[in-house]
């Protein structure tokens, strides 16, 4: 790579990643390394993975394509909750782990303390000390990879078995399929078959990531790269599927991936109902690149035709929403995210409800269960009290506490996912002056005393605004919600009562007062065009709103619950 091409965050290619300074997509890259005194270079395939809990699935898929993992820890921050989450993932895949302590150039760096913490959480092996910024210790890392990570097994002469770990759509080449070849050879012009998908295609281009796509003649067992085969339909290539040769197929497919478990659900609707087809297309294209995104059509009385989509978490939802708006130019209404609850109805039948509006009537419900997570929180010990207060307030159940060193402690709680979904991490950070790190994994469904909170506009329930909340918090939540909606809904021609109700009983009410005055001013020098443009602009503004009954709602109104303060 030339110096000109080298930019900070070079592997974060999405505009969104650069803007937010995060990694959303795993990114593969190949490099060759010649050790001093040795003749043959080593070829290494590296995958840069995201850290945020929402993208765990992305990490997990990448790990399945690897022999080893570099566990990178910040020399001044030390072990964080996400370090642990990723460590456990790597251990699950039986990977060789090389601990790396980065940013040793910082004045606040404490490599010895961090090394001790790593030992405390069960990471064996001498940590490699580096400063990626100054280029310190890079050769040591590369040597550690050569020495400590086993070379890939596999025979280039065997029948082809290649694991699809990612894919994306290219307007010229069709679907680009990212693979790790486990056995055999994937060569240009070969005919290949998807073992689960069943489709057969002729390979047109094979290549590696340097990190730009670079064509090669073939990929052999142990190599990571991509191929294109004029595949137009994104559904042909499923992440986790095995690619084999059409003429000499492998007997078995590689172990695939557990399908991602969506945790958070939200309705996605086009503001303009004519755009339903385009929204569907956008979701299908995104799904190709984002195996964790699931969706199915749904209909809302208020919003018309749209989709109920499942996400790994709120950040994932936000990313999908932003990509649809930016990359496909669609205006979206996103309903407030919720968890899926399990309902046992009279007669013992169980159903999973991922849309609050579809919750059966209270009378027919025997029991309601909601998802709980195991949350790990790492904080300096002086904040233990603050963390406990917050967890308590969010219906948390204390589990365990471990000192990582005399000053830092790992606290684990069982918490309802619905309680940590919105602002838990923000609250945690503000109560610990930003020192806390936080991660969670799904634990189990457990019974909770939940009710549906409905919102009425002009006396009519708006299905897209219903939420499921704990009974004890329902009143406060209802009051806060109507107050927020009053702020977010612009004045209309008529007064609009905004009410919150539980099971038909109104618990809070506010009123959006009627608009008083909206007129065009004088007309100067016969300039009618200017007036007309004003009216046209006014109409455009209205079109960006969603008419629900006789009320025009802005996009933000549907996300009002996310904008409430701590409850």
């Amino acid at each position, binding site marked *: 790579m030339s110096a000109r091409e080298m930019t900070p965050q070079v592997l974060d290619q999405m505009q969104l990643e650069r803007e937010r300074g995060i990694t959303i997509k795993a990114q593969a890259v190949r490099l060759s390394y010649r050790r001093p005194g040795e003749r043959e270079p080593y070829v290494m395939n590296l995958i840069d993975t995201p850290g945020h809990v929402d993208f765990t699935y992305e990490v997990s898929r990448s790990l399945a394509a690897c022999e080893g993992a570099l566990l990178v820890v910040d020399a001044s921050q030390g072990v964080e909750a996400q370090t642990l989450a990723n460590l456990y993932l790597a251990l699950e895949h039986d990977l060789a782990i090389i601990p790396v302590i980065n940013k040793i150039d910082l004045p606040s760096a404490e490599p010895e303390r961090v090394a001790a913490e790593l030992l405390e959480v069960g990471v064996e092996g001498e940590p490699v000390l580096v400063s990626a910024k100054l280029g310190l210790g890079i050769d040591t890392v590369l040597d550690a990879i050569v020495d400590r990570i086993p070379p890939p097994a596999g025979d280039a002469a065997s029948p082809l078995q290649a694991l699809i770990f990612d894919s994306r759509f290219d307007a010229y080449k069709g679907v680009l399929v990212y693979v790790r070849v486990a056995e055999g050879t994937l060569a240009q012009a070969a005919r290949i078959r998807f073992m689960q998908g069943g489709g057969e295609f002729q390979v047109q281009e094979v290549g590696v990531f340097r990190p730009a796509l670079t064509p090669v003649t073939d990929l052999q067992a142990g190599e990571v790269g991509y191929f294109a085969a004029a595949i137009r339909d994104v559904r042909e290539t499923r992440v986790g599927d095995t690619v084999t040769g059409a003429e000499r197929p492998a007997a078995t497919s590689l172990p695939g991936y557990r399908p991602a478990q969506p945790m958070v659900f939200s309705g996605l609707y086009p503001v303009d109902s004519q755009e339903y087809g385009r929204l569907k297309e956008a979701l299908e294209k995104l799904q190709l690149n984002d195996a964790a995104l699931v969706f199915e059509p749904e209909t809302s009385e208020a919003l018309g035709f749209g989709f109920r989509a499942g996400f790994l978490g709120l950040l994932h939802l936000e990313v999908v929403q932003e990509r649809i708006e930016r990359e496909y130019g669609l205006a979206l209404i996103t309903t407030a995210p919720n968890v899926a609850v399990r309902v046992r109805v009279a007669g013992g039948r169980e159903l999973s409800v991922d849309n609050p509006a579809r919750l059966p009537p209270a009378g027919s419900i025997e029991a309601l269960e909601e998802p709980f997570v195991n949350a790990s929180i790492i904080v300096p010990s002086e904040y233990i009290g603050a963390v406990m207060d917050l967890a308590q307030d969010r219906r948390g159940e204390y589990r365990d506490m471990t000192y990582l060193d005399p000053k830092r402690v790992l606290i684990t709680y069982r918490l309802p996912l619905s309680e940590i979904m919105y602002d838990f991490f923000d609250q945690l950070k503000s109560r610990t002056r930003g020192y806390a790190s936080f991660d969670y994994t799904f634990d189990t469904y457990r019974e909770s005393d939940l009710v549906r909170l409905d919102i009425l506009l002009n006396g009519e329930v708006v299905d897209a605004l219903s939420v499921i909340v704990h009974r004890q918090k329902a009143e406060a939540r209802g009051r806060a919600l109507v107050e927020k909606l009053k702020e977010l809904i612009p*004045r209309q*021609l008529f007064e609009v009562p905004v009410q919150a109700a539980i099971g038909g009983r109104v618990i809070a009410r506010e009123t959006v007062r009627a*608009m*008083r*005055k*909206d*007129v*065009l*001013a*004088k*007309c*100067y*020098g*016969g*300039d*009618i*065009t200017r*007036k*007309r443009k*004003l*009216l*046209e602009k*006014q*109409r455009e503004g*209205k079109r960006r709103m969603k008419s629900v009954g006789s009320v025009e709602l802005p996009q933000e109104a549907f996300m009002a619950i996310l904008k409430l303060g701590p409850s």
Partner: protein
Amino acid sequence: MNGAGVYVHLPFCVTRCAYCDFAIHLTTDAAVQARYYDAVLREWALRDPGPGPIVSIYFGGGTPSLAPPAAIARIIAAVTERVAVAVDAEVTLEANPGTVSDATLDGYRRAGVNRLSIGVQAAESRILQAMNRPHDFSQAVAAVAGARAAGIDNVNLDAMYGYPGQTLTDVERTVQALVELEPEHLSLYQLQLEKGTVLRREVSRGRAVMPDEDLTADMAERAAQIAEAAGLHRYEVSNFARPGRASRHNRLYWNQAPYVGLGMGAHSFDGRRRAWNVRSLSGYLARLEAGQLPELGGEDLSRDELMSEFVWLGLRQVDGIAAADFRRRFGVTLESRFGAVMESLSRAGLIAAECGRLFLSARGFEVMNQILPEFLPDSAEALS
């Protein structure tokens, strides 16, 4: 209503008001001004005057009262030479307080001006200063007295509400002070924050704060009450007049009548095509001195666009539009084109149809920006 209008834009000013984004030019150089008046006469000679009769000539600005009466006289004479001008035609000149004298007012009247429109804007020095107006209220009082002395019996006063820093009491005092001057006509308009103005910059930087919707609505209500109580009746969104003194020029615009616009940034409309002139002085002079029309752009309106405009312009007037006028003009009934919109707005109590006229209800009038877009071409299609 038959007849056509002539609008003459006189762009010269001594200062730029904080809210102003019109095509104006700051200069006191008499030679530059003289070149401009010549250019206006050339433009008139190049334009199709239409069949007439001309029922209104309007000198707008800028500050037309900076023009010498002789220049005004030449332009009026040039109009009269090429097209029939009605004997009772309204001839209006906009004037800023502090720019007129007994002599100039007398000169304007002799030139044919019979209506003076004085930009008073506010009675409070504090507000006038904030607006960067180059005069005070006593000069406005003097201008009205001067107009009367010169024999001009038709006077309009302009005032503005909704200005940052203005209180409800300020507006009440201003409107009260204006009606005490006994004008025939009153224009009370709400400040519009326009792009590129000093005021907009002030507001976006937080140095000036626009009044909220409720305060602005209170101001509009009180201003209208004071005007009505003084016998000045509202006939259009921003305009109030004594019986028979509604501005004929305004009416031309609202009734989709043809008009020729002369000068920088002026708009013309011939009943089908609308065109607008270049906005800069140098561009305007260059085009005319080369013998070319100074048009910057234009648009041919389709029949559907004309129908739409006829309705939304007409509905700005308190008495709305006559169904018969629409039918005469377009050969179809209002209902056949806008039936669905009319039905839904009428059910909502926002418009009414009585005695062959369609007009906004009192409530509809207050919120007309919400209603008029319904009559724009494709939204009307979508609804019908």
